[in-house]
């Protein structure tokens, strides 16, 4: 019950954020957005036809009414129909989101896990050559553009080696899934690993310098005990925060690029197509849902804090 009231309270507190995001996006995309009246009309439209289309597209309504409608759509998850394909936005989303998740999840999990492991190794042996080597690779990884990595991987795996497909998403069973997901996963891990490792190493080094680690040593704790009970466990809050807040980044930006480039029909590619064609219903839905996702992440993050650190109270 406690948790429920807390969640509700936080959701309500997140409303100004959602309002802000949707308002700004709405102003930019819809209010200033392309006027699609003439696309839906034939060659020599009469004034009547123009008025009819404009009314159909909702252009004749005042700003706040249109914005209100948008919010209503968001609340009911019904965004109408895509401008380009005419398909229901909801069904487009339900088709593309699972694909994006299946595509990005392995890379996300692997990128963070490996980052933590490498960060641990580097932090534990800080100052020695393995630390410098790991940090060296991290800097190099950070300095290569994601796009460059994707193109390079496409050349290497697709053109030269031909081991994995680099376009499309012909997935019907687990082995074909592995087949298609490998190169995108490798690309995302490659790019994220540099940043992740550096961050986790910094967090862990800071935790290692704390007094209670010295106390643990003073009472005979061995390296494994110290690493787990005194360092990792205590560093969980910044680690969790970082992982949670990288979700919007990975899901939206990562999917956009990978899917457009590899031709995978996920929500990123749908968004990209929507951007280039100016398909507002899809853009509105993606932005709105992103805002809601962001607020949900904030809430889950807070709850995880409480689970992990007894000093934090749900207030």
């Amino acid at each position: 019950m406690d948790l429920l009231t807390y969640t509700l309270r936080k959701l309500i507190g997140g409303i100004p954020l959602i309002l802000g995001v949707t308002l700004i996006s709405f102003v930019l995309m819809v209010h200033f957005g392309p006027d699609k009246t003439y696309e839906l009309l034939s060659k020599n439209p009469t004034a009547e036809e123009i008025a009819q289309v404009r009314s159909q597209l909702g252009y004749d309504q005042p700003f706040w009414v249109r914005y209100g409608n948008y919010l209503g759509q968001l609340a009911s998850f019904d965004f109408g129909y895509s401008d380009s394909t005419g398909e229901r936005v909801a069904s487009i989303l339900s088709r593309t989101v699972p694909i994006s998740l299946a595509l990005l999840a392995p890379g996300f999990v692997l990128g963070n896990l490996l980052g933590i492991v490498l960060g641990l190794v580097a932090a534990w042996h800080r100052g020695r050559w393995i630390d410098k080597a790991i940090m060296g690779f991290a800097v190099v990884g950070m300095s290569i553009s994601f796009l460059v990595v994707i193109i390079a991987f496409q050349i290497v795996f697709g053109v030269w080696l031909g081991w994995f497909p680099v376009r499309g998403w012909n997935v019907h069973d687990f082995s074909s899934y592995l087949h298609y997901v490998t190169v995108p996963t490798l690309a995302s891990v490659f790019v994220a690993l540099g940043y992740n490792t550096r961050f986790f190493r910094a967090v862990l080094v800071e935790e290692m310098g704390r007094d209670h680690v010295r106390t643990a040593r003073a009472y005979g704790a061995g390296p494994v005990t110290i690493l787990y009970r005194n360092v990792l466990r205590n560093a969980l809050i910044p680690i969790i925060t970082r992982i949670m807040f990288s979700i919007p980044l990975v899901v939206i930006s990562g999917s956009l690029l990978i899917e457009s480039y590899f031709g995978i029909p996920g929500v990123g590619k749908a968004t990209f197509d929507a951007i280039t064609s100016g398909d507002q219903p899809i853009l509105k839905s993606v932005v709105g849902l992103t805002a809601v996702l962001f607020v949900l992440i904030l809430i889950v993050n807070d709850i995880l804090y409480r689970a992990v650190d007894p000093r934090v109270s749900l207030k």
Partner: protein
Amino acid sequence: MTSALLEVEDLSIEFATEAGPLRAVEQVSFRLEAGRTLGLVGESGCGKSVTSLALMGLLPGNGRIVTGRILFEGTDLATLDQAALRRLRGRRLSMIFQEPMTALNPVYRAGDQIVEVLRRHEGLSRRAALDRAIEMLARVGIAAPEQRMVDFPHQMSGGMRQRIMIAMALVCRPRLLIADEPTTALDVTTQAQVLAEISQLAAELDTAVLLITHDLGVVAETCDEVMVMYAGQVVEQAPVGALFAQPRHRYTEGLLASIPRIRKQPLERLPVIPGTVPELSAMPTGCRFAARCPQAQADCRARTPELRMLGRSRSACFHPAGEE
């Protein structure tokens, strides 16, 4: 001569820094008998904390013991590897630190942390360890010990946390307790209580105590013997009464003179020791205190004085006080 519990011989400790190796502790030697309390006094930076860390094998990464032996129950701790030292830490010798606020792990309950030590060193079952821990908490003067066991550190005051630390330190009945400024961070009333508890428990458990402090008042109250350090060296060691009655080294003399107390005649100003401690990277030859010593003479700057017996004290001074 009976073999003491702890015998430190010619201990020297160096740190590797950006500016080259710095020697923080120079040829320190002392003995501590079982069940006795030795106070280690000196100002910040004199090397007292570093010495205690070296005893436990807890020097930071860039520090190392360059010479000397640390004979604890006959074994030279300086030669042991980390695995061997881990078996001793918390079991045969324990240490408590200055900052109780940060010494405990904030995400585990207080009781769990003590139980962890017990199970590691004595292989007790969880139930047995819990009972021992509760019993220990009661002995350090904590009311409602069962409740304190399940509390988290942030739910306790500084004094309470320090008592938890003391309980953790003594629960395995170590022979030696090193207390590095255990009460400096506490308020005055709690200070007195905690010190009293340490003394009492040490007496009950026949534990020797190496008490590090900069407060001579604390030393007078709790210690059997005192050791004074200056600029990385031991300058005087004596039984408490002897030191306060007749300090030998000029530094000790200056320290005692600067303590405000009720005198027969009012003073114009409180005596102070002029000057500052020399930098580690620029140690003078000869007696390190000579630059600030009102009695310094030519031989003081030329040669380094060694510890010599005088009365009941040992001091490293060519012209000690009270010789006339």
